[in-house]
């Protein structure tokens, strides 16, 4: 290894014969994965034609599925963040008996097969309590079931992300704020929260993306009723189940485009905001 000060490296990051193999291998491995993703999309595209997109977008059912997908994912994201924020904070700051168990419970939605989550929700809302709740708000096979199914999985990912975020934030500054006379809530909102913005954004995008792709629980808990509980993955499933692979691919690519668009917008927008403030 070529020795040098850190200043040297900053000015000449690729200098020295021994850095190149390292960086090249990193680059190769990275590009392999990116190539794989792009190749899948290209293969998809080769199986469809502009007319299939056009047909898909013209279909009333698919337009509804796009709308329901986008709206339900956004609602899920908001709910997930509000729930994940306190859980992530508490789990990162406090030690208490049974924490290990609680931790494991919070992972259940991530570990469970999606079908099981759907089935569990379906059964839950048929219990006397669930039935009573449905007297007020019908859930099973209705739109709320889509959001609940998405939420029950997406929230777990948001919790993971936010907890890691809070854990990386040094509690020292918070403690300093407390010694300076802040209440806990003030310390949280004035000191911790601004530092967690990036993590918050990641958690939100993860929850959103996760919900967009959510399918297993929705199929069971919400059904696949056109113009009602049909989200984009449902559309893909329905088209596949009658052999219309072209339309299934067209809808899949629509999903990819929607996802990329939203993720890019959030990241760019969120990035600038984050950079615009002192961290």
């Amino acid at each position, binding site marked *: 290894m070529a020795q040098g000060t850190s200043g040297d490296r900053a000015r000449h990051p690729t200098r020295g014969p021994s850095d190149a193999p390292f960086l090249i291998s990193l680059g190769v491995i990275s590009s392999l994965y990116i190539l794989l993703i792009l190749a899948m999309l290209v293969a998809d595209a080769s199986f469809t034609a502009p007319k299939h997109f056009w047909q898909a977008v013209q279909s*009333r059912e698919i337009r509804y599925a796009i*709308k329901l997908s986008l709206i339900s994912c*956004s*609602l899920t994201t908001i709910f997930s963040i509000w729930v994940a924020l306190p859980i992530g904070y508490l789990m990162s700051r406090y030690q208490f008996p049974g924490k290990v168990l609680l931790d494991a419970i919070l992972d259940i939605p991530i570990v469970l097969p999606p079908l099981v989550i759907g089935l569990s929700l*379906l059964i839950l809302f*048929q219990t006397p309590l669930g039935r009573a709740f449905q007297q007020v708000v019908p859930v099973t096979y209705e*739109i709320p079931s889509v959001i609940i199914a998405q939420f029950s999985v997406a929230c777990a990912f948001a919790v993971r992300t936010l907890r890691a975020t809070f854990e990386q934030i040094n509690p020292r500054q918070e403690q300093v704020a407390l010694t300076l006379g802040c209440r806990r809530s*003030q310390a949280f909102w004035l000191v911790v929260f601004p530092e967690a913005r990036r993590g918050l954004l990641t958690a939100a995008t993860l929850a959103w993306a996760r919900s967009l792709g959510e399918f297993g629980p929705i199929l069971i808990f919400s059904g*696949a009723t056109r113009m*009602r509980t049909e989200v984009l993955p449902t559309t893909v499933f329905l088209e596949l189940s009658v052999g219309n692979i072209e339309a299934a691919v067209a809808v899949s690519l629509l999903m990819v485009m929607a996802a990329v668009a939203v993720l890019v917008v959030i990241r760019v927008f969120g990035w600038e905001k984050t950079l615009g403030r002192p961290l």
Partner: protein
Amino acid sequence: MNRARNLLIFSALAVAILILLLRSKPTPSAAMPGKAPLVVYCAAGIKPPVEAVARAYEQAYGVSIQLQYGGSGTLLSNLRVAGRGDLFLAADESYLLIAQTNHLLEEVIPLSRMVPVIAVRKGNPKNIQNVADLLAVEVALANPEAAAVGKITRDLLRKTGEWEALEKGVRVFKPTVNDVANDIKLGTVDAGIIWDATARQYPELELVAVPALVSGEQRVSIGVLKFSEQPTAALRFARYLGARDKGLKEFARFGYQPVEGDVWAETPAVVLFSGGVNRVAIEETIQRFENREGARVTRVYNGCGILVSQMKSGQRPDAYFACDTSFMREVTALFSDPVNISRTAMVLLVPTANPKSIRTLADLAKPGLRLGLANEEQSALGALTARLLRAQGLYDRVMANVKVQTPTADLLVNQMRTGSLDAVVVYEANTSQVKEFFTVIPLTEPGAQATQPYAVGKNSEHRLLMERLLAALRSAESQKRFQSVGFQWSEEEHE
């Protein structure tokens, strides 16, 4: 703390806006005024014809149909847990059978037939002609545990001894028949065994019929769910779907081979010919059947001899419930295989005090008695009575005492009530309402009973409806009604 408040306000606002956006959906067919939608659990593979029929039905009758798609097995678990919905349309019979075993279904209406075939890409590039050819190419099969076509293929090929080799050479097992078809279409495999109906939906595929698989024919049927809160509306749509001039046309258009099916009528009107003796036992069952089906059953009760002569002169009831098998035989060409429903013994009816001391059939020959018998030509009871008397060598002497002959037994009972007769021969089933006035003497002679068969008219436009009436007549509730009025349940029933 402003930050917290701002975040809260922002979130609440965003949620409100999003929910509003959801609400503003262009109200789909789901919101038709006044009527609850019919929820149909529909196997995703049968979507094309069912969706087309459902839209046509919505337009024609203003009932909204909510189609809930999924794999048949998934739907089955779903509806079991959810305990709601009206109809279940499974990809094949096996799921309906499971649903029936679990007491989830009432009526089942058949829609179309399908047979397992070998499917290949158009032009059959690998020239596959039979199951043996499959060993040389890449093959996808449906999983025998998950999909009916897989199970049937396995069972049939085990019989021909071809399964073991095929199973070893198979490239992949897929969970549904459409997954197999998709693999062939994509070129992942060269061939697969799928339903002919599935293969016909793929323009890219060609099907090779295999004699070994032909006996694996299955029917696609729709069943009414037990917990449906609107069974009549559900049945009506199911009838529409299964009507030869309505839904089945769509099935044919999408490459299915539809069953014969009934002719569509919003309120079907059918005619049932029934022997008079059966009336008390079946009347309530038929009324319930009419209410549930939304159909009108015109009942013609009469002596079976009269009914038979009406049929011989050209009348064609949709079904016929005879008083005795002997009166079915004469018109058997008009009907499909009759099913025996009940039996009733022949009895002597005498006044409670029995002043003329009548105890056996032979006592009827005593001079000076006033007897009533059913008419030999007009009714089954009369014919059976005459046969019995001839067998005992009593016919001429008894006939000398006969004062009145009627076409049906209930008229004889009425005559007895007026006191104008000393004894009559009727069915035990005629006596249930009058036991307090008379003594009932069972006849022990062999052949002193009648068996009531039911048969559906071969040319009826509502054969399936009449089959369902048969099912209603054979139900446990109907059995209770028969037994409460003095019929015995036919043993054949308990198969």
